[in-house]
């Protein structure tokens, strides 16, 4: 088997899959990428046994065969060769020899038969949506996913396909992020995509109207994006009932300039307790006061003009949660809706219900 190819023709597809290769593996073959050649095409496959990425590219060759190569080493070599360099990849027993100009690399290979690939997966639901839409759903919510939480079903993103909408929901138990978009789907489905798969998927999606084909099965989700096929295992668990957690509009509804509030909170956060990040919000007529102090007894106070008249309220929050939500929202204004100091706060764009953020307060 032999492959003669230009650097970019191999580097680009490899770049699309190499991220999924873990730096430390339990099986040696997982450090490798599977290269399969057929008539005038090749595919590259990388996996960490949870997420599998396959990409396909055309090349002029009549050879066929398959082998696995050390993924990161191959990637680093290609990356550091000059642009548009001509590359020759040949195989000699258990070694692969990569030649380009006056460079020559001998790489160890492992048999393709040892490489774990997914079998044919049955899918129950298929839908197509613009890549931009799916990318937005993920970007508006993924920051709220839990990380290594013992409630393992929180370490991922819920995709809920229901009522002509695709909804993405993430929560770590302290705050929740919700985003939805209209889609056409033949059936309903609710699945949890693990954290790593979510991050990988967000990276692969482009900000374009080109379609992403989403297929959902019992144990897997697959997304086809152009020449790339992404498949991830699903988290088997019951996601909390997010509808119950998202409050209706509260008793105190505040309109604020989103960026003004965000920058005021960013400055206040500097003097909040580094570990607990608590800030105190004092709501009065036409005024929101933000205060923080730290164990060194340093203090910050900011006043933000807001559109509100009604009862006063004093409530504490982890400032990082507020900043995450304000950063993910768009629009000039933000609508904050409170009930009391022990109930959650709802943040959203006053003109749209598509993105909603729920944050539980802190008792300060």
């Amino acid at each position, binding site marked *: 088997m032999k492959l003669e190819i230009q650097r970019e023709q191999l580097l680009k597809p490899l770049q699309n899959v190499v991220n999924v290769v873990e730096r430390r593996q339990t099986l040696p073959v997982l450090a490798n990428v599977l290269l399969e050649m057929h008539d005038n095409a090749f595919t590259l496959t990388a996996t960490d046994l949870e997420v599998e990425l396959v990409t396909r590219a055309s090349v002029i060759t009549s050879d066929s065969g398959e082998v696995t190569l050390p993924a990161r080493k191959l990637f680093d070599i290609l990356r550091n060769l000059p642009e548009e360099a001509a590359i020759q990849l040949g195989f000699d027993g258990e070694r692969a020899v990569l030649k380009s100009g006056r460079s020559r690399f001998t790489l160890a290979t492992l048999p393709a038969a040892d490489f774990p690939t997914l079998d044919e997966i049955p899918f129950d639901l298929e839908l197509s949506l613009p890549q931009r839409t799916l990318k937005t759903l993920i970007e508006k919510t993924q920051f709220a996913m839990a990380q290594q*939480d013992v409630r393992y079903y929180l370490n991922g993103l819920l995709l809920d396909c229901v009522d002509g909408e695709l909804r993405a929901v993430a929560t770590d*138990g*302290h705050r929740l992020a919700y985003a939805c978009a209209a889609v056409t789907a033949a059936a309903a489905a609710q699945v949890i995509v693990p954290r790593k798969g979510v991050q990988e998927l967000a990276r692969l999606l482009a900000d374009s109207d080109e379609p992403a084909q989403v297929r959902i099965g019992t144990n897997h989700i697959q997304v086809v994006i152009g020449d790339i096929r992404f498949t991830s295992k699903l988290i088997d*668990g019951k996601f909390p009932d997010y509808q119950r957690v998202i409050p209706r509009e509260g008793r105190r509804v505040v309109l604020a300039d989103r960026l003004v509030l965000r920058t005021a909170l960013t400055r206040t956060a500097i003097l909040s307790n580094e570990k607990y990040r608590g800030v105190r919000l004092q709501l009065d007529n036409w005024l929101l006061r933000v205060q923080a102090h730290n164990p060194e007894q340093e203090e910050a106070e900011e006043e933000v003009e807001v559109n509100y008249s009604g009862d006063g309220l004093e409530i504490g929050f982890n400032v990082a949660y507020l900043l995450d939500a304000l950063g993910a929202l768009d629009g000039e204004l933000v609508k904050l809706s409170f009930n009391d100091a022990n109930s959650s706060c709802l943040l959203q764009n006053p003109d749209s219900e598509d993105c909603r953020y729920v944050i539980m*307060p*802190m008792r*300060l």
Partner: protein
Amino acid sequence: MKDKEQRKIIHVDMDAFYAAVEQRDDPRLRGRPVIVGGPPASRGVVATASYEARRFGVHSAMPSAQAYRLCPHAVFVKPRFEVYRAVSQHIRAVLGRYSELIEPLSLDEAYLDVSISTACRGSATLIARDIKQAIRAATGLVASAGVSYNKFLAKLASDLDKPDGLAVITPAQGPDFVAALPVGRFHGIGRATERRLLALGIATGADLRARSRDELVGHFGKAGAWYHQLARGIDERPVEPDRARKSLGAETTFATDLDDPAEMLGQLRALAAEVATDLARRGLRGRTLTVKVRYADFESVTRSLSFAEPTATYADLEPRLAVLLARTEAGPRRVRLLGVTVSGFETAGRGQGLQLVLF
């Protein structure tokens, strides 16, 4: 003694806890022998072995090197106590739904007194089954439970059909169960006492029961009276919730007094390692480290220092031992006892703001 209301005690014990958490979090480890503890090439020990590894004779507290010889294809995993502590808190939250009277023994073990619990119409067996299901739902992990009328028998019961076990020892079964039990399995009987009992011709609970209280007290002092009770299936120890432990330490007295500071430091390191393991097992982190020195003339001194952040790790404790020892007169004065204690345990969230939760 007055007639007492029959108690209902449940002992909940997580199956191969640390290893089970690792297998839960890393699907690649499922179905494979997993050993949580020091790496095989180190002088570390096994903290927990998965059931797959136990089949090869690996058990906790065994040196990792020996475990490696028994089961070379096992996956050795470094313990993640932070995660175990967090899982343990979730388990404790689950237990809290069934009783106020919970006595945690370690991260993976607790007693509950459900005598007055109204859950499951008061059936302790049904409560135990419920608890197992609730723990699995909340954490994805498997627990064994033992139900009986005191702590001694509840603990023995939880061991009866591990893993995923649920066993009951009723008041009617208790005496027969104890009669058949080898003395080594009795609460408070370690290897040394077991040897002494065997030398006296006492091998089982029935043998123990045949001896008079006075004879047992004659041989074993106060402990003898305790064995006399246990042999009858009697254990009145209450389930003590929230043992508010203030410090945790270990000390050792030497057969001959020490005068070499290097040797003293070696002893302190061994004690600190023991304390660190204990702290981790109980999920505690402390701010203050104390070294205790008793000189040959029985005068004792202590030297302490505090950490900026609460800790429980040997790596944090170890470098401070030499500093504290140097602040005593150990060396010029001979030493008969050394101790290491950690105190000032953190209390969650104090004064820092309590984050409320969505669900």
